[in-house]
């Protein structure tokens, strides 16, 4: 991914970038970014890192429900401006399926087939768009496999190896919220509550 997208393109996706850094970023290669000790370039490295890290987390933690097994939709509210990119990545992964990701204020849709993307964006809410899609295809046959996932997820837990610190480090609440990830978020809250005295 890093090869086809330039340093400055990644930097532009960051929610907060000073103009001076943007100017520098257009002149540097990935190699320079990775090896420099210049303090401005190190700042760029961190900002690009924030963006790439959020992209990676979204790719991991976003969940889809499907309508008719061909239209996959899910909640996503990223901090950085990565909505379009992440939606396209999923469209390519699930080619010939329509991908719809969004939140209360923004929806991205993408469909990938025969090496090209069809894209749609709207500043409506995800719920509104999903209702519209259901009307369009005349079906609200949702397949929900969350229950199977929950049983499987719980089966992998080993009591003797409980390590909450590592869990929180790897699954920060921030990212679980921005992907609307219910099951782990519940677990996250539940385990946290155990540490807070109730009386």
């Amino acid at each position: 991914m890093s090869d086809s997208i330039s340093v400055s393109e990644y930097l532009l996706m960051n929610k907060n970038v000073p103009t001076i850094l943007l100017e520098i970023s257009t002149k540097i290669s990935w190699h320079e970014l990775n090896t420099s000790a210049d303090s401005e370039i190190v700042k760029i490295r961190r900002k690009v890192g924030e963006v790439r890290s959020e992209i990676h987390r979204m790719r991991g933690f976003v969940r889809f429900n499907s309508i008719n097994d061909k239209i996959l939709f899910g909640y996503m509210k990223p901090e950085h401006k990565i909505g379009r990119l992440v939606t396209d990545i999923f469209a390519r992964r699930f080619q010939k399926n329509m991908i719809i990701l969004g939140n209360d204020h923004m929806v991205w849709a993408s469909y990938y087939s025969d090496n090209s993307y069809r894209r749609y964006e709207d500043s409506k809410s995800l719920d509104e768009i999903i209702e519209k899609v259901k009307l369009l295809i005349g079906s609200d046959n949702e397949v929900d496999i969350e229950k199977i996932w929950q049983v499987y997820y719980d089966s992998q837990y080993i009591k003797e190896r409980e390590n909450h610190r590592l869990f929180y480090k790897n699954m920060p609440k921030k990212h679980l919220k921005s992907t609307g990830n219910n099951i782990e978020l519940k677990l996250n809250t539940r385990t946290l509550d155990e540490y807070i005295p109730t009386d």
Partner: protein
Amino acid sequence: MTSLEKIVHLANQSEYDCIGDEGKIFQNIDLSKIDALGQGTKHDICTSSSTRRVVDQNEVLGDVTKSGICHSFTANGRCVSMFKTLFTNYCTHDCKYCQNSTDYKGSKSIYSYTPEELARITISLYKGNYIEGLFLSSGVSSDEDLITEKMIETLKILNDKYNFAGYIHFKVLPGVSYEYIKQASEMADRLSVNIETPSKNYLSELSSTKNYVSDILKRQHYIKKLELQKELPAGQTTQLVVGACGESDFDIFKRTLKEYKEMMLKRVYYSVFNPITATSLEGLSAQPTWREHRLYQMDWLYRVYKFSENEIKIAFDEEGFLNNKDPKLFIALNTLDSSIDPNDASYDELLRVPGIGPKSAYRIVNYRKKNKIYKREQLLNLGVRVKNATPFLKINGGEYSRLDRWVGCQTQ
């Protein structure tokens, strides 16, 4: 931009022959089966989904990545990247630590998937973006070849019916025939046989039905042979239970070296022993998790940092155990006599300094082509853990004596 209507229309008319009956399949599924067969793999720790395979065809479902993706983490903090499951929990081996053993004294229900059912669950979890792929293991049932045939049937359905291009880790069961291993190697990213212990004698203490050489090492050799003919995208791996039979870390290290050098393994995984109720070893005490961590550090020094065998040997005590300290620091304190100047040390010399890893060593080597390193801040910007590295470095003339270094590293 394309209109919403147009995209919905395109998606809805695309040819996809597996719609309609998902709901029904899941209504009939026994959740306790998913639980039991999932639990059967919870000690299998190879969850990496990174592979060198590149998916660039049209008309497939899914892809893979070089880095792998974690889709969740358990409350153990461990990555969940695959649907890790047994095909059946029926097993005729008597491994003393295992809950599927014939020695198991508790009550349990026997479950099996059908290939069709397992493929369908995998696809559904995959399309929900819960997993990167399938990790398929199994009890050997009454016959390892028969059950492997069913496991392969699952891969074929994924491949032929669903055009599935996601990740597949396939467990080769002890004693399985070459022909089946060959078939699996054509569809899987990674194959693995669990060696469980570092030697034949240790295995015979844990199981009377498995033969270390003929059931396990020979199968590893088959996989190696297949790899030499055609690359296995994510290579061959294996796993050991650590501390179930009194073996030392050095015993494990010796086996690990053989696995890497003779069997061409990509990775060796270590899982510390935890007793399971109603198994023969339920009374044996659990091993500390740090033992696993130190073994991984030792493994990393050999495989990634390219330390020599003799260098790594320094980290083991007289009984052949690693203590709960960073082995790299321990080795450095015992081998680095004079301070290292980051301006002229080789890449290999830099790698031996605590606080400098492959990435920061690479950065230093590139950076110094045009710049001189004379202050700690530069090293910080290059990603060095300066606090750990300083006692071993010569920076702008300043350096630690050997004694200062020992004192300075006491707290780490």
